[in-house]
């Protein structure tokens, strides 16, 4: 813990030094990812990531839903067209889903959405489906880190193409 604090201090000092330059570039650095997380598992998984102080980039914006099965393809496409670089739909593991079949329904919705994205010429990699339990804080943080990186690369790829 202490180590982290000193780290934080160093970073902070560094930041003030190069604040003006860094501010702009840093903002660009992180994509925006909307995360729909179910109340019972994935939201709690995100909580545990916090309690465990697993660090991940500040790219996620979490929206709590009772069940991932509440999500419709339109929610996802809305997020992607409103400005999200990526979307995560995260629910309970199938066998422990609080709503029995909710996670499976969500998987189906994500599948349908992917098919539509494909037809519409959108990059399906911008949408990710995850099963994260309340005990998987580590997984939540890992997913956040990996997906942020993936999306960042996708954006670079896209810019590169242009």
């Amino acid at each position: 813990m202490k180590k982290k604090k000193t780290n934080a201090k160093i970073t902070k000092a560094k930041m003030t030094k190069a604040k003006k330059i860094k501010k702009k570039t840093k903002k660009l650095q992180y994509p925006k990812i909307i995360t729909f997380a179910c109340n019972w598992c994935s939201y709690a998984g995100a909580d545990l990531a916090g309690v465990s102080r697993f660090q991940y980039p500040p790219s996620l914006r979490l929206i709590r839903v009772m069940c991932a099965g509440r999500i419709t393809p339109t929610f996802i496409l809305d997020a992607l067209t409103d400005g999200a670089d990526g979307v995560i739909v995260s629910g309970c593991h199938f066998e422990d889903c609080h709503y029995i079949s909710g996670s499976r329904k969500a998987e189906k919705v994500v599948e349908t959405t992917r098919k539509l994205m494909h037809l519409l010429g959108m990059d399906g990699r911008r949408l990710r489906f995850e099963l994260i339990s309340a005990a998987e804080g580590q997984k939540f943080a890992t997913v956040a880190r990996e997906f942020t990186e993936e999306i960042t690369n996708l954006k670079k790829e896209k810019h590169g193409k242009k």
Partner: protein
Amino acid sequence: MNELRIGVFVCKCGSNIAGFIDVPAVAEYAKGLPGVVFARHNLYSCSESGTQTIKDSIREHNLNRVVVAACTPRTHEPVFRAACEDEGLNQFLFEFVNIREHCSWVHMQERELATQKAKELVRMGVARVALLEPGEMTEVEVIPSALVIGGGISGITAATALGSMGLKVILAEREKELGGMLNDLYKLYPTGEDAREFLDKRIKTLKKFKNVEILTSSEIKDIEGYIGNYNVIIKEGKKEKDYKVGTIILATGALTYKPKKVSKGKSLFNYDGKNVITQIQLENRLIKGLKEKKVVMIQCAGSRVPERIYCSRICCMTAIKNGMLLKKANKDAEVTILYRDLQTYGTDYEDELREAKKAGVKFIRYSKEKPPSVDKKKKFVSVHHELLGRNIEIPFDLVVLSTPLIAHSDVKKLSQKLKVPVDEHGFFLEAHVKLRPLEFATDGVFICGCAHWPADITESISQALGATSKAAIPLLNLKVTVEPIISYVDEEKCTGCGICEENCPYAAITKDPETKKAKVTEVICKGCGICASNCPEQAIDIKHYKDEQFSAQLKAAFEEVKT
């Protein structure tokens, strides 16, 4: 509609949030958001003084919506909801924004960006709270009686326990007599007790309770309703009777797998019900006394195979116990147990295994790939011995197959009536193995004993007692409360297509046979929203999680909403 008067409270949580986020800046930012008339930061929002501040502000600034940006709703939502209610502000007009677990603690080295994120999260929360609607908790009265389905040891135990609480109990058994599988057993492990005596004692105790109504030769014709209010039609003999109960315990038990007798061709290990029998048939013969001396038992006969991949759990101990009984009855008896793996968990059972070995019961391991074969003409069982690397032949008078417990064939009927799930093998599936054992996701229905998974008598009894105490809680409280996060149907739009009914995990939404419209039984609905997301007509929405509330929250993630 009244003018929006949103109050935003940003929590420092000591240094937990303030250490990594510029909390005053977030509060300052919140002041400029649409509808926000008041914003401030607190050191500890959840403390006595913190909640008092919120309460005072609601009063002073006449707030009609409250946002707290602090930790997680999973722990602290009730605290702030209560504070709102204290000031006469409906608790569902409160929105929690998580800037600790989801922000400060996970972006400890990114103060500036974490602050920015916190601002955006607050913005999203404010956009959502503006569209929230008040809701009321619903209380439902509970009929203080229970139905126990199945009169085996689990059902008897549950009914007795509920009876002893003074509750009205209906115990419905499909056979002529109570007792279930115990009727066919000889002696019980690990105590060696006589099954008949044990059962008789239990039934005697049960029958003492006048508040327990026992129905035999009965059949559940229909079950309708929800926690607290079930209508059950039970046919006993030829007459049908209606019962009203508050909770239901499923204790329907299981069957033992009996290999199919095939006249020509092959049956499992040449099973014939005469010289090659099952463990339960052996128990029956043991009651009468057994003549055969050379007995070979084959474990995992029909279990842990592709058709039935599960371990039946009780067969190892049953074989060991019966082997010992044979040895005790006749010192010259030769008992060989062919097994794939032995599971004798716990101290008692492991002791039994040691005892059996000591008494001379032989244990030979076989592999799934090279199972034993039973030669009825030559009267020996041939098995590949892994260590010897060759087949050995064990002569027998009797072969006993340890076949697994399997679900009743008509289990689907009951599961559909109760709207509770069964797994691929027909065993009932509890809500959550660790978090909600013995419960179903459907409130008010509980499970115990072999209907749930192969269990021995000890386990069945503890499960029955567990299910009983869970089932008794609403019966003794006489009421259940339900959050108003539920789905509702726009009847005008509903076409009665039935898609919601197909999709609902709880049968909370059903098609009314008369109006042909979807109808929500509010007590059963848990607000998952699967119905809403699958409704082609968009006739369904979820209170507190409405489409427009999501849309607003989503939009606010990207842009400042115009005032």
